[in-house]
């Protein structure tokens, strides 16, 4: 949806955009929203824990993660749309040598992989913060901290899968390894927190 910023839409508008026939926004934008919501829940849990020495610092970190994640909702949609457009144009050079085509495809997908990796990293960090809130924050906020960890893990796993999908032609790319590591860390943290 050129011209609009997805992150400025009301929830219903964002969901309508996700549900539309247009290929973007899609899973990456949804993952960014999940991570941003998780960070917001962490911030709330920290703010509601005045007796905890680190609460203000954790709230500030959660806010920073949320602020850096919200623009990724739109950035992912833009990167995905750009990679689709680039792939479509590559189809028109069928006669090009295989290696040249591979390079063109890899380049088209690289931008989308970068955005997805940023989402995965933010998700993992949010999971770490959620664990801190659950362990040291007000006990009444533990359920929301767990909800934050689940959302963060979900967003991270979706983003890591997108990184892998976008780097399918770039075997051994460090970004795929980094994203997979993020997904494992987020899952481990959520698992430590229990159900």
């Amino acid at each position: 949806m050129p011209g609009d910023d997805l992150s400025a839409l009301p929830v219903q508008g964002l969901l309508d955009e996700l549900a539309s026939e247009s290929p973007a926004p899609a899973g990456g934008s949804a993952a960014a929203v999940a991570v941003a919501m998780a960070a917001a829940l962490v911030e709330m849990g920290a703010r509601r824990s005045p007796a905890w020495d680190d609460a203000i610092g954790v709230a500030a970190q959660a806010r920073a993660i949320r602020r850096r994640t919200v623009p990724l909702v739109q950035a992912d949609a833009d990167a995905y749309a750009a990679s689709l457009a680039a792939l479509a144009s590559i189809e028109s050079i069928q006669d090009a040598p295989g290696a040249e085509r591979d390079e063109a495809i890899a380049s088209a997908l690289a931008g989308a992989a970068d955005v997805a990796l940023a989402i995965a990293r933010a998700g993992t960090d949010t999971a770490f913060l959620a664990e801190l809130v659950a362990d040291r924050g007000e006990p009444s906020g533990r359920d929301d901290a767990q909800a934050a960890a689940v959302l963060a893990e979900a967003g991270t796993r979706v983003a890591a899968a997108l990184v892998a999908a976008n780097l399918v032609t770039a075997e051994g790319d460090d970004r795929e390894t980094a994203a997979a590591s993020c997904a494992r860390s987020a899952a481990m943290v959520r698992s430590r927190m229990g159900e």
Partner: protein
Amino acid sequence: MTGTAMDWASVSDAEVVRACRAGDDAAWRELVERFSRYVLAIARAHRLGEPDAEDVFQETFVRIYEHLGRLRSDDAVRPWIGQLTRRLCIDRLRAAVREPVADDPEEQGELDRRLTAVDEAVSVQEALRTLSADCREILDRFFCRDQSYHTIGELLDLPPGTIASRISRCLAKLREAYEGRSEPRPASGET
């Protein structure tokens, strides 16, 4: 104080001023380095174009060089530089439009808000300078460079799970330093 191999990060503004007065060239370089972004930020808050902002920048530091000896309180160097810069910005705007500047209360309010934000940012920078190098680095990496705990942990050889707590402790120290330094100071220290 000498200019050789000085770690200026832990030196207060007042000490830099005293070293400048003593003729320490390195201190002058530090003074310019320390306040150049502040002066430019004030010029930009006045919506000066880039050439005018650069002229104000040059003129401000020329005046600082000429008049630093008349500064009454070394601790008041920042408000003094701020006032000097604001005055030069207003002179520049007046010269450009030949009419009173910022008569509109809304415009004045907006300018005041921008200047307050500049002052707060500089106060945070000053407070940051009082922290350990480790704290400065970890805060810079997380809040300014948007690095993840994993990236920071790899660079600093720390488990990613401990980074958040470390950042919180550094933030607490920063807050303490900021609150200790944000006491209002007189706007002018010049005789």
